[in-house]
């Protein structure tokens, strides 16, 4: 029976794939149904994932197994219930208390961690000896990294008008940024194409059995 259900599952997968691709022709009821199934199932999946993987191990299990040592966890539980009060218009203001804890923690963590990982680490990685390297390509690469990053940052500095030498440097920054955007775009296109190839492999392999999956 399990084998039949597995086969049925592959047929369902193929039908849903065609239903989504039917949008390429035009918006139609079949696509809309598949889209709503996707939304419903995604939401349901994350709901269950949150319960089993976040709330159960971090809140339910510690409170039920050892309440004495985890009494403080009652506080986030109450704040979590406050958060759900957002759904009740008359008392939705109590959710602000929970939101303020989340926002405060996020802001505090973001301030320190972003400063460490995104600002200081990236800056220190850019400060390097551009004259040393195993070959010319690496040395050239280092120069590009230093000049590109510096001019790119200058481009994002809007407190000074982009004129004269400052403007010329900012313009050079745009050049590096455009090359970077182009590369990122090309890379993303290839990622999407590989997903498309994956779908074709599914249809021709798992569903029709024409190619080896």
């Amino acid at each position, binding site marked *: 029976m399990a084998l039949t259900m597995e086969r049925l599952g592959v047929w369902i997968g193929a039908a*849903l794939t065609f239903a989504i691709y039917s949008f390429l022709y035009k918006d139609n009821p079949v696509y809309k149904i598949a889209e709503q199934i996707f939304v419903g199932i995604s939401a349901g999946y994350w709901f269950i994932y949150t319960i089993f993987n976040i709330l159960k191990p971090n809140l339910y299990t510690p409170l039920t197994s050892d309440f004495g040592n985890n009494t403080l966890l009652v506080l986030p539980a109450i704040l979590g219930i406050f958060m759900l009060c957002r759904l009740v218009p008359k008392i939705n203001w109590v959710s602000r208390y929970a939101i303020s804890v989340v926002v405060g923690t996020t802001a505090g963590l973001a301030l320190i961690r972003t400063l460490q990982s995104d600002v200081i680490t990236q800056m220190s990685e850019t400060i390097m000896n551009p004259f040393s390297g195993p070959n010319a390509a690496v040395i050239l690469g280092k120069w590009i990294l230093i000049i590109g990053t510096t001019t790119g940052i200058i481009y994002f500095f809007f407190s000074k008008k982009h004129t004269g030498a400052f403007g010329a440097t900012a313009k050079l920054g745009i050049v590096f940024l455009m090359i970077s955007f182009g590369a990122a775009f090309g890379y993303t296109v290839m990622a999407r194409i590989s997903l498309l190839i994956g779908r074709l492999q599914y249809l021709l392999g798992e569903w029709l059995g024409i190619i080896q999956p």
Partner: protein
Amino acid sequence: MKRQFPLVITFVVGMLVIVSQFIPHQPFGHLSDTLESWFLIISGFAILLGQLNLLKVNIIKIHRKVRNWQYYIVCVVSFVVMITIGILWGTQDQPGLLGQGSALVSFFGRKPFDYIFKHFFENLSATMFSLLAFFMASASYRAFRARNLESSLLLISAVLVMLGRTTIGTWLTGWIPEDLTYLHIPQIANFIMKYLQKTGQRAIMICAGLGIVGSSLRIILGIERSYLGGK
């Protein structure tokens, strides 16, 4: 009180997290960890809130019979089915209220929740994202028109990266002698990804990082209050 107290909480919590990063001694030592675990729990409730709000919005749409309301029934049914089977029989490594559901496992070959995940969710999400490949083709046409220096650079680097990731890119420059490998398209694509692409990403990362630091300070100091909503 309804607005001032949350601002005080944000300030106190935000400052405690910052201070605890610099003072590794009690009572600040474990404060950051405690607040992070609280944050995780409350965020979990926030995720549930989002899903329940989706359900509420869809039910309202069905009740009011808005345009195309029939499709929202599909969404609600899918959502309820997924939650029900998840709670009753659990997921791959978690038992549900009715245990592991061994009878259903032998029928479906896996738990019902995982069956829907594999055959519905995985296929739908992969197809939905692969659909973007087609729309990117039209976006590429608009973005890649070489009108000026900047768009020409965008075009050239994107084409080189795309060619470098395909067999045709290797084939096009395969005839170039070994001692000139740096002229091979895959090598050029690798160079672009390793250095040129990194410059832009690094500049954006540093500037965005400074922006995040500024925004975080504004939130902690109560200058930015939009997250409280309403008046």
